[in-house]
């Protein structure tokens, strides 16, 4: 047995913009254990429901995370609507899903770029982010924001997208898909890239199941677990939804799942654009959640399943609001995948759970 050393990693690290700290226990170059420490981003926003009423809190909920911002605003809106028994117009449901899927594309492209940076392929990082800007342009045109949109509201959505504009979006996505083919080839077929990914940071299917890994992290270990399949909101009208999975459980598989999900999202958007009904985009919501009413709702964020819980008390201020985000449930899986890897692979394996520490700590 070699000598044991402990190396601190983060919270400020050039490869990883996310402030997480790991104590890496090393035996020579091999990581035998990784002990995570979080709390650098904790703000305590769940307690803010006591000072912001349920409409104002929409803006706080959206800022749980700037990458999954739309997902969180959707999750919050969905929860409050269920709490108050509000049914929203069909068109709003479709628009929500379209923005949500666009967010997934931007989030996955962002991740693919970061992982390229993580394994030292700078130009691939730059090209991936160049493509991502096209999606951000769509956001900017349709909502005015690039990463935070404030497009969701309790009762529907704030902006409509004209049908002609929707077909414009589809055209942009088609253009993106053809350029994307070249990039995804680099991630999945390039030998030097594969050398960095294949067999690195393995999480087996059993481990993924035992540790409840969610999202692409779990699906890359072969767990076909995707909340979109329960058909919330506009997803209910999809003809056919099959989660993307891959069996190997290594970094390559996690890359593969995300690469394919981008294309799947484009398909979902196309299908919904073709089917979108005309009509209102929001209903007026009056009153307050009843005393003692409580609701749990969930949705599939780009990183996996997120839970929302809200409890009313008869006033405009909620009694309790709670979020459980994908990264917090994926940390045990990440620590397991790290055990036994080389020190040089640590940043990449940490990246492959697509950590969103801001969500985790709220």
């Amino acid at each position: 047995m070699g000598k044991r050393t402990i190396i601190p990693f983060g919270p400020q690290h050039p490869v990883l913009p996310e402030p997480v700290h790991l104590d890496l226990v090393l035996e020579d170059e091999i990581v035998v254990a990784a002990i995570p420490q979080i709390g650098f981003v904790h703000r305590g926003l769940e307690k803010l429901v006591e000072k912001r009423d349920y409409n104002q809190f929409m803006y706080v909920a959206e800022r749980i995370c700037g990458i999954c911002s739309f997902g969180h605003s959707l999750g919050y809106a969905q929860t409050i609507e269920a709490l108050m028994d509000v049914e929203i117009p069909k068109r709003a449901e479709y628009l929500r899903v379209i923005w949500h899927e666009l967010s997934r594309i931007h989030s996955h492209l962002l991740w693919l770029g970061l992982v390229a940076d993580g394994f030292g392929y700078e130009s691939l990082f730059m090209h991936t982010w160049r493509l991502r800007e096209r999606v951000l342009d769509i956001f900017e045109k349709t909502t005015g924001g690039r990463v935070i949109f404030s497009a969701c509201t309790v009762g529907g959505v704030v902006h409509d997208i004209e049908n002609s504009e929707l077909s414009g979006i589809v055209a942009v996505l088609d253009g993106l898909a053809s350029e994307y083919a070249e990039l995804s080839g680099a991630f999945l077929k390039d030998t030097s890239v594969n050398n960095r990914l294949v067999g690195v940071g393995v999480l087996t299917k059993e481990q993924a199941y035992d540790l409840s890994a969610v999202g692409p992290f779990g699906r890359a270990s072969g767990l076909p677990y995707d909340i979109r399949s329960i058909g919330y909101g506009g997803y209910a009208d999809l003809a056919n939804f099959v989660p993307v999975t891959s069996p190997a459980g290594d970094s390559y598989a996690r890359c593969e799942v995300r690469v394919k999900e981008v294309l799947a999202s484009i398909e979902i958007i196309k299908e919904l654009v073709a089917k979108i009904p005309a009509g209102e985009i929001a209903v007026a919501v009056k009153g307050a959640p009843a005393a003692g009413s409580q609701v749990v709702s969930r949705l599939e964020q780009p990183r996996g399943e997120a839970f929302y819980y809200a409890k009313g008390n008869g006033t405009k201020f909620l009694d309790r609001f709670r979020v459980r985000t994908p990264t917090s449930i994926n940390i045990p899986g990440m620590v397991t995948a790290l055990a036994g890897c080389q020190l040089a692979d640590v940043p990449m394996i940490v990246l492959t759970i697509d950590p969103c520490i801001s969500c985790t700590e709220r």
Partner: protein
Amino acid sequence: MSFATKSPWIIHYAATSCNGCDIEVLACLTPLYDVERFGIINSGNPKHADIFLVTGSVNEQNLPVIRQIYDQMLEPKVVVAIGICATSGGVFRECYNTYGGVDSAIPVDVYVPGCAARPQAIIDGVVTALGVLDAKSAAFAQSKKEAS
């Protein structure tokens, strides 16, 4: 400022940022916005950096981290607070675990508003910081001359 007198390197730390401003900082480094054309390079080492970009506000746990990075940077140095969280605490200012903007931990030279701050605004902030850096360098050189 017609030209920059040096190629300033930046270091970036995400305090309690929601990631919105962070990814915009990263977007500034990528082809569309490309701050590298000003000779700016993102560095991970505080001792290499001239400009400290902080996103998000200050809380109990990251206060020492922010101070530590700042203290490790060599003079002259400039701090840019990016986004409304870094400026004042923003939507989170009333949270129990938020002290407020970055200036509650270290002195800040340039404030970039916005939630999320747009890349254009961030670049504007960084370019403003270059001016501050030049002024500080001049003052620093002067004080060294006087001391010798």
